[in-house]
């Protein structure tokens, strides 16, 4: 089954999303900040990263750029998952190198479709 890394600083959101994805049969791991996210992604090489953008230590945009730059993780699928839902936020995420973008509050059905599309 596909492996998903959730990078999310909000404890409730992390808990909720990881539980829901696990129920859908994904193998899920979580990171609480951008830096930890990069480290875990590099080490674990998941099939997909769900990346929050407002993160402590290293924000989601920087983490995405770092992952896309490093040869080892350059091909990682990264989906931005953020409460920044204003005009321009999508472009900002895509410019940082994200493969797709979804907003909070999470519509699980929509998110699953996006995950499916990324995983091919």
């Amino acid at each position: 089954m596909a492996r998903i890394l959730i990078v999310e600083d909000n404890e409730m959101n992390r808990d909720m999303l990881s539980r829901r994805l696990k129920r859908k049969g994904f193998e899920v791991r979580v990171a609480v900040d951008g830096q930890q996210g990069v480290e875990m992604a590099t080490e674990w090489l998941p099939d997909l990263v769900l990346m929050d953008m407002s993160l402590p230590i290293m924000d989601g945009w920087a983490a995405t750029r770092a992952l896309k730059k490093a040869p080892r993780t350059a091909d990682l699928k990264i989906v931005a998952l953020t409460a920044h839902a204003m005009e321009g936020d999508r472009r900002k995420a895509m410019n940082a190198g994200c493969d797709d973008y979804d907003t909070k509050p999470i519509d699980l059905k929509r998110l699953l479709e996006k995950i499916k599309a990324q995983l091919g």
Partner: protein
Amino acid sequence: MNLSKRIALTSLVILIFYFGTVMVFLWSTKISREKVSSLQSSIRSQYLVSDISQQLKELNTRLKVLDAVASAKDKKELDPDEQENLLGGIVSTGESLDTLRATAGKEVASQLAGIEMADEIILQWKELIARSEEVGQPVQIYSLVAFGHEFDKAETQLELDGSFLRNLSSQINIQIEESEAQINQVSMLVFLASALIALILLAFLIRYTKRSLSALRLGTEEWSQGNLTHRIWITGKGDLGQLANAFNSMAEKLDATMEQAHEERLRADDANKAKSGFLANMSHELRTPMNAIIGYSEMLLEDIEDGVDLEPDDVQADLSKIHGAGKHLLGLINEVLDLSKVESGKMGVYNETADLEQLINDVSSTVKPLVANYENTLDTVFKLEDSEIRTDVTKFRQILMNLLSNAAKFTNKGQITIEANRFIEEDVDMISVSVADTGIGMTQEQLDKVFEEFTQADDSTTREFGGTGLGLAICKKFAELMLGRIDVESSPGKGTCFTFVAPAIAQDIEQEEAQQDSIEEDSGDQIEGLAKVLVVDDDESSLELSKRILSKRGYSVMTADNGADGVEMAQNELPDIIVLDIIMPGMDGWQVLEKLREIPETAGIPIIMQSMLSERELGLSMGADDYLTKPVHKSDLPNAVRKLLPDLNLNKGVLIIEEGSTLIDLMTRSYGEREFDVRQTADIVEAGTWVNEREFGTILVGKHSDMDAVANFMDDVERSTEHGDTPIVLLNSIELEAMDTDQLLSFIRIHQDAKLTGNPNE
């Protein structure tokens, strides 16, 4: 020098030269006349000289003829006729000589030797003739002829004199010519000089004017091209200089205005940016808790749909997360509402007298659990000589609560100290309340942003400490509304100290202004028909003020700006109460009062007199129901009106049933307490007694632990024939938390109005 002075000076100089020319003309005329007259006398002298010479010659000839005749006839004596004739010629010649002397003038005459000689001859003749007559003998002809030689000499001399005079004439002629030339020269010189100087002055004048005008033109051109820093430079303090100064100051003002407009635009841009930023933040902040609420509730729903055996503990954990996120959301919305109220100027300040020490103790006891949660100790230090203050207690509480909960959250096993001081700052009695902690502190960078909206020390702060990031922004705005401020000092790792400073005795003027600002919008929400008030006052601003104050309280206000209209309106409209000014042109307040008391329809309408005159006794004795002396405090008039409306007042009673003080706090936060007769109890039995004692306009039910008793009470009231139409409003905790004073008051007004108009279900 100014333009008019320059023109005046130039004209004066030209005038002086003109005068000079006239003087030269007069001088030359005088000289010419003198010369011409001496020429004339010289010419006349010539004639006279030749005349005299002629006469002498004739005399000589006649003598020679006499001599010849006498020799021929041998006659030796002169006939008396001849003698007479001769004497006549002699006298006439003598007269001619006198005339010549007079005509030639002494100076010239002295140079004419012929005159002397002729004189001599004439004199001798005269003597000769006179002597002959004395002795009575005729004049001997030979004695006369003896003069013949003298005659010849005199004639020669006279001829010489004649030519002398001719010379003199031609000399004078030359002189005349010379002086004419001289006069011409002087005249020309004066004319040229004056023309030259006038030209120079005119040139200066034109140059100055032209230069000034072109400086003005250049200046206005520069300004029209947008270069407002350009200044027109004109020398002197004259008209044009002043004009330039006026232009300059205009440009300066224009420049300042443009600058201001520019700054305002920048500010507006900034505000716009801030607003967009705020919206983006707001969207973000709302989505985050929403994510938890939707996510967890969907999970629970899925579980139920899937028929999963739910562990109560797990369900409780998830539900409490939903609950927590919901509460967070509500707090956020309330804070945003507070903030937007402050920013739109609708946040009023409601000052009341309070005891500072007690206030602080109340708040600190409320936050004690939170303080204990992080194992902190809380101390209070009071350095107050006088603890009585006047302030907006609700805002004061909110500020202090916020500062204290921040201190508690960011301090672990530390010390929190509240210190209250009272001091004089710039002649104003001030209080300060500081909240110092020994917590994590802030860096300078964090300090700079501490009062900004949606900023917390860092993003992880929310995760660790919760909060919306609006609390301090609101506190700062509240402090400013209360004419105070919040200062902050902090060092990372050592702790933070927030100090709230405000006037100890707050003035109510600001509140009046704040209310006035929002009156236009508010008036639309007013419930009409509570009572009709007629205000009669000739002073427009006073009339407007009364109208505003009363409208604000929900009264339907009519106005009349003179006594006669007031009486007419009172008769036609039959208001519930009349507010009457005394000093008015035409029909004054006393006359209006008298008239209104005479008319049967208006005789019973309560009248409040309102005047600068302190004539309370007189007013009341004349039949007024109340008397207010201007200036009237803003709450005096509505209070006086309310007192005089007993029937309506009955329905304005509000009964509050609640445990705790949420509703009563909301009611007493503003003038609501004064507008409505509010009674509060947590005891259902007592509430029942009160309801039976008197009628209430509205019954509000807030938080209560025994909801069954409350339900029974509500049923009883609704079923009773007497009070069945009294609206009972049950407010749940969510409504209570979201409601503010204004909402509550308009809520009550709507219910009361519905009751008054006999439409209780409205």
